[in-house]
C-alpha cells in the first residue's frame, strides 16, 4: 500500500468518503463528518497509521485534505 493510499484510507474510513471526494475542496467543516470530533479522530488515526506524533500547531493548521499531506511530509513521511 502506498503512502497516499494509507492517507486516503483514513479519510475514507472515518468520513465515509470515496476516492473522487478526496481533493483540494475537502476542508475542515466542509462536510458534516469532519467536525471537531472528526478532526480529533482523524489526527489520532493518522498518528497511528504513520507512527508519528503531530505538534499542536500542525493539528491546528490541518485545515484541509491537501494541507494535511504537506504537514505529514514534515514528519519524514514521503508521498
Amino acid at each position, binding site marked *: 500500500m502506498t503512502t497516499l493510499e494509507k492517507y486516503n484510507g483514513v479519510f475514507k474510513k472515518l468520513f465515509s468518503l470515496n476516492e473522487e471526494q478526496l481533493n483540494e475542496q475537502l476542508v*475542515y467543516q466542509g462536510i458534516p463528518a469532519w467536525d*471537531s*470530533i472528526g*478532526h*480529533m*479522530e482523524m*489526527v*489520532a488515526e493518522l498518528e497511528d497509521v504513520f507512527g508519528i506524533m503531530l505538534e*499542536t500547531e500542525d*493539528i*491546528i*493548521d*490541518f*485545515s484541509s485534505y491537501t494541507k494535511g499531506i504537506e504537514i505529514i511530509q514534515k514528519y519524514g513521511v514521503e508521498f
Partner: protein
Amino acid sequence: MSDGFSLDYLGIQKYIRNRYPLLMIDYVDDVLPGKYAKGYKNLTNNDWFFREHFPGDNIMPGSLQIEAITQMCAIAINTLPSMEGDTVKLIDVKSRFIIPIVPGDKLLIETKIESFKRGLAKCSGKGMIGDSIVCELECLLLAENEAKKYLP
C-alpha cells in the same frame, strides 16, 4: 496504597456539570486523575425513573447505566489540572447489560481511562452489584474545551 482521593456529592459537582435528576453518581471512593475513577450510586424506590420504568417491574434504564458509568469516566478526566467543569460529551459507546438493577441495589462503578489525548478519551467501565458485573461498556468521550485548543 492508592494515590487517588475521594469526592462526596458536593465535591463531584465541582468537577462535572451534571445535576439532579441527571447526576447519576453519589460518591467517588477513589479517583486518580487521567487514570481511573471508582465509586457508587445507591438505587432507591424514590429514584425518579423507577416509577415509570416499568410499573410493577422497576429496573434502572440501560441508558442511565451508561450515563452513570460515563459520568464516573468524566470524573477521572475533569480532575486533571485545568479540566475542572469542562463539558464532557459522549461520542460513541458499546455497552452490554447483564443483570437488571433494581431498587435497593448499590451500583458500584469502576472506570478506566485507556487513553486521553487532546480532549478525546477512550474509556472502559463496569457496573457491579456485590461481586457480580451487571453492565459494562467501552466509550469515547470528548472534553469540549480541551479539544477546542486543537481545532483549525
